[in-house]
């Protein structure tokens, strides 16, 4: 994804057991904070409906 | 220039679950714009594209009869994306219908003739349209004997059961209803596959007798030899086809069998016509 031009930080992988609730919360907090800091991603929005 | 892709807006007026497996529902539509009903003037055997906004369109045979006014009816089997969504819709919701499309059963040819209708399963929709239309007091005298052979897997899988019972009681139409197997101890009609019942009940062929046959491929496959045996000429066997369609007006290129478009030149063909085309249906 990063190779395609999606900024680092927008995609995150984690390995969390169903018992690791605190880790889950931490990861979600981390990821949302990183994504918010990056701001909105317009790249994957569709082009405005063009009429030819 | 009239835009043939523009559906008429309609409101769902009534939804009837037809069969015990709940996979077949009849939708009754009312046109939103008063003038559209007149523009949607059809003959039995034609179909329309049901347009579910945001999902797409599906070609469905018209189940109501031209003699029934104020609404149009379609019976839809739940199969793909659009039909599944349609099954989840409720009375009052807005969608569109586009048509009428295709040719119809050859009513000009059938006038003054004996008509044998052979149907199976949920392919009975345009046949219902035909029967209601022929039985209309203004039309009945245009036809000689009317025989109907209609089969389904079980009694609960028959479409339009109330109407079937009404027709049974009439003496101007001979009904031969059958099921593959009856799970109902009170079943008082035939048991057996459509081809076998056809062999027993269908009138012998003559120049004035036409068979309209519409049903699943396996039924058609085994009924056709029976009709051959009874002496029906291939130009006296009338069939209605279905194929994947999009435009419904002979332009998008997918539904053709040979040079004929099922959507525009069909869906009704005689077996004699089909014999001359590749069997891509």
């Amino acid at each position, binding site marked *: 994804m990063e190779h395609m031009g999606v900024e680092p930080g927008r995609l995150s992988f984690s390995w969390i057991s169903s018992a690791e609730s605190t880790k889950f919360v931490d990861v979600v907090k981390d990821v949302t904070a990183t994504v918010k800091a990056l701001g909105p991603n317009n790249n994957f929005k569709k082009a405005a409906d063009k009429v030819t | 220039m009239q835009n043939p*892709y*523009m559906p008429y807006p309609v409101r769902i007026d009534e939804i009837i679950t037809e069969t015990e497996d709940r996979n077949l529902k009849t939708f009754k539509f009312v046109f939103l714009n008063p003038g559209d009903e007149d523009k949607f003037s059809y003959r039995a055997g034609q179909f329309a594209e049901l347009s579910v906004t945001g999902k797409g369109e*599906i070609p469905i045979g018209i189940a109501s009869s031209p003699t029934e006014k104020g609404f149009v009816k379609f019976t839809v089997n739940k199969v793909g994306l659009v039909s599944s969504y349609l099954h989840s819709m409720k009375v009052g919701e807005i969608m569109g219908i586009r048509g009428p499309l295709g040719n119809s059963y050859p009513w000009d040819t059938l006038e003054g003739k004996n008509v044998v209708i052979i149907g199976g399963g949920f392919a009975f929709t345009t046949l219902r349209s035909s029967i209601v239309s022929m039985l209309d007091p203004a039309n009945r005298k245009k036809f000689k004997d009317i025989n109907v052979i209609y089969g389904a897997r079980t009694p609960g899988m028959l479409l339009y059961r109330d109407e079937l019972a009404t027709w049974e009681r009439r003496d101007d139409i001979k009904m031969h209803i059958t099921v593959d197997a009856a799970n109902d101890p009170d079943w008082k009609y035939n048991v057996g596959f459509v081809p076998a019942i056809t062999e027993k009940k269908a009138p012998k062929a003559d120049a004035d007798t036409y068979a309209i046959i519409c049903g699943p491929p396996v039924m058609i496959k085994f009924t056709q030899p029976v009709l051959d045996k009874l002496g029906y000429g291939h130009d006296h066997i009338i069939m209605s086809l279905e*194929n994947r369609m999009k435009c419904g007006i002979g*332009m998008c290129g997918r539904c053709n069998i040979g*040079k004929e478009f099922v959507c525009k030149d069909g869906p009704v063909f005689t077996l004699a016509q089909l014999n001359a085309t590749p069997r891509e249906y």
Partner: protein
Amino acid sequence: MKVMKIDKNDWAGGIGKIQSSYRLYGPVKGDAFHDFKALEKGELPDLNFLNTRISPKSVVYPQSEIMFEYSLDEKNPDHHIMKDAAKDYSPKAILGIRPCDAASFLLVKRNFDTTEYKDPYWIRSYEATTFIGYACNNPCSTCFCTTAGSGPFNEDGLDILLTDAGDCWYAKAITEKGEKLLNAAGWNTIAAGGSLKKIASLKKEAEAKISSLVSTDQLNNKKTTELYEAPFWEDVSFACINCGTCTFLCPTCWCFDIQDENSGCSGVRMKNWDSCMFPLFTIHGTGHNPRGTKLHRVRQRFMHKLKYYVDKYENGIQCVGCGRCIRSCPVNIDIRRVCDMMNSYDPEACACPVK
């Protein structure tokens, strides 16, 4: 009709003038090949090409075209009702179209403009277009237009035919639409008397360069079902990978799909090019596919172009001989070979598989 002489020095100026009253499309060179594009103001068409890689059909018939818009928001009084999308049918002109490609529009018109139904998108767009053809002085070895109902100087479907006469252009006005455009361009110097003769001799020269020919004379005499069952289809279709290259590049392929696409509470219904090469094209909701194998699909493409169309319209094959499918097929399936096999097919003589 009149022939104008265009001094090569007046070329750019004329193009500019056309652009003030027409949306102008012309061939433009990309990285490796030419393609038709809407020309910017001041941009000149690049006529140094044999033919474009992709056909110019998209100028009239875009690959993806929005027909309707709708709202799914029940607060909107017109929710779930289709509304016509805004369209621009102001005059446009396509400059540099090869005669074979121009002829293709006449073939496609038979599909979209019928007595029963008319496709308003195709017809309006077609009628808004002025076709300025560009005669082929140097056809390719894969061109077989002369035996496919067209030719390097063929005028069918054109409003103007441009001929490169070396030191100048000759522009022959074929229709009133064409004359109007020549006026708009300010190209109004009538060519000297010898111009028609010069064009005729260039035409003869070009036609003589067409080295590949197909025979189509027997196609309408063949029985559809016999051709359909001919044994050569296995051999013809073996290499095919069922990509849509041939159909997407073909000027005469018109098949399309209709799709709804939602975005939030609104959406559009559009027409997109489709291809008989794709299994999805014909598959039923039940999963049954009447053209379930690549043999079916390859056969459909050739039967449609070379038999069904011939029978349906009794006006020749649905092919103009541009050769694009031959040049771009990744596995070298050649319509000329298939056409000859079909045209010469004799079921009696053919007990063994044809190779």
